[in-house]
C-alpha cells in the first residue's frame, strides 16, 4: 500500500535527480547579453567625470584616431571560410578584402580550439569572424562568446551574430557583432567561455589582438536627422544617422505622455516575453551604378530599445550603403503591437468558432475542414491582425501548402479572413500559436540625406 508520504518522497527524489539542461548556460548568457549595460555604463561615466584632465587628453587622441580612419581605406586579404556565414555588406566587404586579419587562436584543455580569423570595424560596430574547432558538434556548440575587453574598464558586448557548422560537424564558423571599441582602445582581448562538461567547463579562452583602425571601413554619412514623426500622441524623434558600407545606425528616442504609453514599448515583463510595441521603419537608398540610378530598400539587420533619461531610446541597424550614394529616405511604416500568446489548441473537423485569445474576438478559428486528405483551417480576425500558426498532426508538424488572406465584411465590419491549407489530416491535431500582432500603418517619410 502506497501512502501519500511515499508519493511525496518519490517525487522529491525525482526532483533531486533533475539536472539543469546543458543549454541553460548559453540561454542565461544570451539573456544577459540582451540587457543594456546599465551599471557598467554609470560606473564608467563617473570615472570619466572624475578624470577630466585625462578625458581631455583622450578626446584629442580620439579626434586624431577618427581623422585617420576616415581618410584611409584599406585593401587587404579576404578572410577565407566565411562565404556561407557572412551576408549582405559584410560578405561584399570581405570579398573585397577589407577588414583586419587577426589569425590568432586559443586552445582549450579539452582540445577544442577557437581561432579569431579577423575583424571588420566601422563607426557602428566591430564584426568578429571566428571559428570553433572540436571533435564533435556537441562540443563545438557549448561555447558562448562573452565580450571583447579593452582597457581597464572597457568591455564590449556581443549584439548578435550567425554561425554555420561544417559538413563534418567539427567546425563552426561565426560572425558576431560587437559594440565599436572606443577610439583609445587599441589592445583588445576576445573572450569566449566553454560550457562543455569536463575539464574545460567554465574555462575562458582569451585572444589578445591589436586593433588597426587604419583598416576600419570609411564613414560615408554622419548627420543629425532631428526629425519627429508624431502618431497617436506619441513622438518618434529620429536624432542621428551614421553610415558606412558596412552598416547604418539610426538612433533616436520616443517621447510618451504617460506611464501607460511607456509600458507599451517597455513592458514590465523582463526579457523577451509579454507584449510590446515597435515602430517599423524602412531605409531606402538611391545610388548610381554603371551610370544608372538605382533605388533600393536597405535590409534591416537589428533593432534595440531601452529606457533612457529623455524617454525611450531606440537604435535601428541596417546593412551598409552602396557606393555613389545620392539620396537616403527613411519611411516610418507602421507600429506593431506584438503579443506573445504561446498557445496550443486541439482541433478536429468539428471545430467551429474557437477564440485563439480567450475572452477576445481578436482571432477566431472559424472552422477546420478535411479536403482531399489535407486540412484547411479558416481564421477570422480583426482587420489589423498578423499572425502565424503551425498544425501538429499526431505529433508531427504538418507542411503548410498554402496560406491566403483577404479582407471580408462581416456584419458590416471589415475583418481579416486567413485560410491555411496543411498537408495531411489526422485524429489528434493541434494548432500552435506563438504570437499575434496588431499593425497600424503610419506611412510617413523623411529625407535624411541628399547629394545636391
Amino acid at each position: 500500500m502506497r501512502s501519500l508520504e511515499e508519493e511525496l518522497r518519490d517525487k522529491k527524489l525525482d526532483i533531486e535527480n533533475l539536472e539543469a539542461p546543458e543549454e541553460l548556460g548559453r540561454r542565461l548568457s544570451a539573456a544577459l547579453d540582451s540587457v543594456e549595460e546599465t551599471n557598467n555604463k554609470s560606473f564608467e561615466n563617473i570615472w570619466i567625470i572624475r578624470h577630466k584632465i585625462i578625458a581631455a587628453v583622450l578626446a584629442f587622441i580620439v579626434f586624431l584616431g577618427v581623422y585617420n580612419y576616415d581618410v584611409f581605406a584599406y585593401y587587404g586579404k579576404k578572410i577565407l571560410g566565411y562565404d556561407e556565414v557572412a551576408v549582405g555588406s559584410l560578405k561584399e566587404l570581405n570579398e573585397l578584402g577589407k577588414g583586419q586579419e587577426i589569425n590568432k587562436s586559443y586552445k582549450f584543455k579539452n582540445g577544442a580550439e577557437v581561432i579569431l580569423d579577423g575583424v571588420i570595424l566601422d563607426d557602428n560596430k566591430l564584426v568578429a569572424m571566428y571559428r570553433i574547432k572540436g571533435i564533435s558538434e556537441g562540443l563545438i556548440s557549448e561555447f558562448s562568446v562573452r565580450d571583447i575587453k579593452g582597457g581597464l574598464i572597457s568591455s564590449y558586448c556581443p549584439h548578435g551574430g550567425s554561425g554555420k557548422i561544417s559538413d563534418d560537424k567539427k567546425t563552426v564558423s561565426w560572425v558576431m557583432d560587437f559594440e565599436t571599441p572606443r577610439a583609445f582602445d587599441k589592445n583588445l582581448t576576445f573572450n569566449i567561455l566553454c560550457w562543455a562538461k569536463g575539464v574545460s567547463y567554465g574555462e575562458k579562452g582569451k585572444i589578445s589582438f591589436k586593433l588597426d583602425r587604419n583598416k576600419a571601413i570609411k564613414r560615408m554619412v554622419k548627420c543629425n536627422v532631428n526629425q519627429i514623426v508624431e502618431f497617436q500622441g506619441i513622438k518618434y524623434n529620429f536624432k542621428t544617422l551614421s553610415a558606412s558600407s558596412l552598416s547604418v545606425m539610426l538612433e533616436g528616442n520616443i517621447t510618451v505622455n504617460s506611464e501607460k504609453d511607456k509600458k507599451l514599448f517597455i513592458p514590465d515583463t523582463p526579457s523577451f516575453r509579454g507584449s510590446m510595441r515597435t515602430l517599423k521603419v524602412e531605409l531606402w537608398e538611391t545610388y548610381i551604378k554603371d551610370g544608372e540610378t538605382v533605388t533600393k530598400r536597405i535590409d534591416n539587420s537589428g533593432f534595440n530599445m531601452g529606457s533612457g533619461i529623455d524617454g525611450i531610446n531606440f537604435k535601428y541597424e541596417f546593412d551598409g550603403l552602396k557606393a555613389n550614394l545620392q539620396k537616403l529616405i527613411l519611411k516610418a511604416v507602421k507600429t506593431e503591437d506584438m503579443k506573445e500568446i504561446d498557445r496550443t489548441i486541439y482541433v478536429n473537423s468539428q471545430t467551429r468558432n474557437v477564440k485563439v485569445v480567450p475572452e477576445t474576438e481578436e482571432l477566431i478559428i472559424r472552422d477546420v475542414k478535411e479536403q482531399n486528405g489535407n486540412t484547411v483551417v479558416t481564421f477570422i480576425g480583426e482587420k489589423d491582425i498578423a499572425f502565424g500558426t503551425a498544425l501538429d498532426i499526431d505529433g508531427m508538424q504538418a507542411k503548410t501548402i498554402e496560406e491566403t488572406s483577404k479582407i471580408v465584411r462581416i456584419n458590416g465590419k471589415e475583418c481579416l479572413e486567413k485560410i491555411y491549407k496543411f498537408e495531411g489530416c489526422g485524429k489528434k491535431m493541434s494548432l500552435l500559436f506563438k504570437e499575434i500582432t496588431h499593425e497600424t500603418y503610419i506611412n510617413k517619410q523623411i529625407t535624411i540625406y541628399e547629394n545636391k
Partner: protein
Amino acid sequence: MDSEQLVKRAKKGEKEALLTLIMERKNEFYRLAYVYTENKEDAMDAMEDMIVILYKEISKLKNDEVFYSWSKTILVNCCKSILRKKNKVVIIEELEEGACEGGFEGNERKVDILRCLKMLSENQQEAIKLKYFMDLDYETIAKLSNVPIGTVKSRVSNGLKKLKEAFGGEY
C-alpha cells in the same frame, strides 16, 4: 573566486560574475523553477527572466551575503509570473473525476502526484511542493512565498489534510 567577491563584481555590472554565481548553483535554481513550472522550457524561461532582473537590481542589494536567497525569491516571482500568464491563455486541463482515486491504497500503482496536487489551492500547492519536494524549512518557504511562517504551516497542514481526505490513504 568566492561568492562574496563575485557578488561585488556583479554589483559593478560584470555580467560574467553574475552568470558564474548562478551557474555555480544551477541545479538548485533549476529544480526550484521546475517545481513551480513543471516543465523544462518554462523553468529555463523563468531563469532567464530572473537573471535579467538580478542584473538590473543587484546594485540595490544591501547585504551581499543574502544574494542566493534574494535570487531565489526573484526566481519564484518569475515562475509565478509565467504561470499567471499561461493560465490566462491556456485552457487549464480539468482534473478528471477520480483521476487520483485509489492511488494511495490497494495497489503499488504510482499516481501523478503533481496532477493530484492540482486539486489544492495554488498557495497550498506551493507550500507542499517547497516543503516536500525541495525539502525547505518553514522559514525559507515563508521568505520565498512572502508570507508569515504560521501561514505556511497552515497551508501545508490544510493541503495535506485535503489530499488525505480526498484519497482516504495513509498519512
